[in-house]
């Protein structure tokens, strides 16, 4: 499987390592010409969504990626990647791809002192380590989406059609997690 990792900013090296450990053939997407290589899955890493979103537009990647996402390309998105996909960002008029029927709140657990790690169920698998770094929360989700993990009553990972998205970082503690 060929996995394209969006590599404009953030923890893309960790995302690449994660997909290599799953046996994937991994390449970086930094500009439009990189998309010509063709991909079976798009991975959107952690980082700052404001930076990644701006660079997607400045580098001319935005429209081509949105077309592929909306056309059914499998997507694996964490943290900032989830924010890029969300249909709505609370208290913020910005919408990036808007391809995933969820609403998110950025920095929902506060600043870095609010970052934390916990262990929970992921899609029926117990004991999965979950790392939240200045993480967003999913405040609303379409009933058509499947909730894969929950923290304090709020969904923290969802799957909807071709998209799997996390508020936490499976790529940082990948032990035991089979994502797709």
């Amino acid at each position: 499987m060929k996995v394209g990792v969006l590599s404009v900013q953030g923890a893309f090296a960790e995302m690449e390592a994660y997909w290599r450990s799953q046996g994937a053939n991994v390449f970086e997407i930094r500009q439009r010409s990189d998309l010509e290589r063709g991909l079976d899955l798009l991975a959107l890493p952690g980082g700052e969504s404001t930076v990644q979103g701006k660079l997607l537009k400045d580098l001319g990647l935005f429209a081509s990626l949105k077309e592929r996402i909306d056309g059914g390309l499998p997507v694996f998105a964490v943290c900032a990647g989830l924010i890029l996909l969300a249909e709505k960002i609370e208290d913020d008029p910005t919408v990036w791809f808007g391809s995933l029927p969820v609403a998110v709140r950025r920095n929902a657990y506060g600043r870095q002192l609010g970052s934390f790690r916990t262990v929970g169920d992921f899609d029926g698998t117990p004991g999965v380590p979950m790392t939240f770094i200045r993480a967003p929360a999913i405040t609303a989700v379409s009933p058509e989406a499947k909730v894969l993990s929950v923290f304090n009553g709020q969904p923290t990972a969802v799957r909807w059609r071709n998209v799997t998205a996390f508020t936490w970082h499976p790529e940082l503690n990948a032990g035991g997690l089979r994502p797709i």
Partner: protein
Amino acid sequence: MNDRQELNRNLAQMLKGGVIMDVTTPEQAKIAEDAGACAVMALERIPADIRAAGGVSRMSDPAMIKGIQAAVSIPVMAKCRIGHIAEARILEAIEIDYIDESEVLSPADDVRHIDKTKFSVPFVCGARDLGEALRRIGEGATMIRTKGEPGTGDVVQAVRHMRKMQSEIRRVASLREDELYEAAKELAAPLDLVRFVHDNGKLPVVNFAAGGVATPADAALMMELGAEGVFVGSGIFKSGDPAKRAAAIVQAVTNWQDSKLLAKLSENLGPAMVGINADEIETIMEERGK
């Protein structure tokens, strides 16, 4: 290493491939965020002005830092003096996202750094070589940056520090296991961290470039030499067109290998900060805190 330190290392991982910009007002912070900064460093005076003003330079007014925290959604960092435990406690109390225990300010302790393992908030520290970097990590720093020579607009020291650190990392990685004890002694660094570098060929934390970066080409140069991201201090808001220059430096860090794009990014940026040659200055900040 405790869980808090691991989480703090993780935040630095999220900043990689990005540009952290010095800002002195909420307006500048907004300009930096809109230009694509992955974090901002809130401080009353940028290094070039600290250098020009002289005198003792201290932690910024918490009210000023809070104003910047309120203005942007990206992480906000702030500087405390080397060894100034109380300034660090104050910054932790206002929930800063990262403390820079920085040689840009006047040192409060000319021998010791802060024991950063006693804090929940993360710290980034400057280093000129591998030994300094590992000593800071041993004290609990969860991110490293080169010192460079701040406020000069002269990239030569940042280049020297990054090259030295990377070549020392390569040397340690090439050693036999039984040579690591002597290497730890030479580097004056904790053995377990020397062993990590030997086994992994890299620092155990994220390593940014800082000090004297003023142009997209400077930023691309530092990425070429192994930086995982770039701090830009005086270089942006001391230049003719800060928003345009900031956005160009952000793109240069992402696509540092694409020289055609770098050429385009370098066009019509207006005047860069004037700068002073690093060997013509009187206050050598990089000598502070070893």
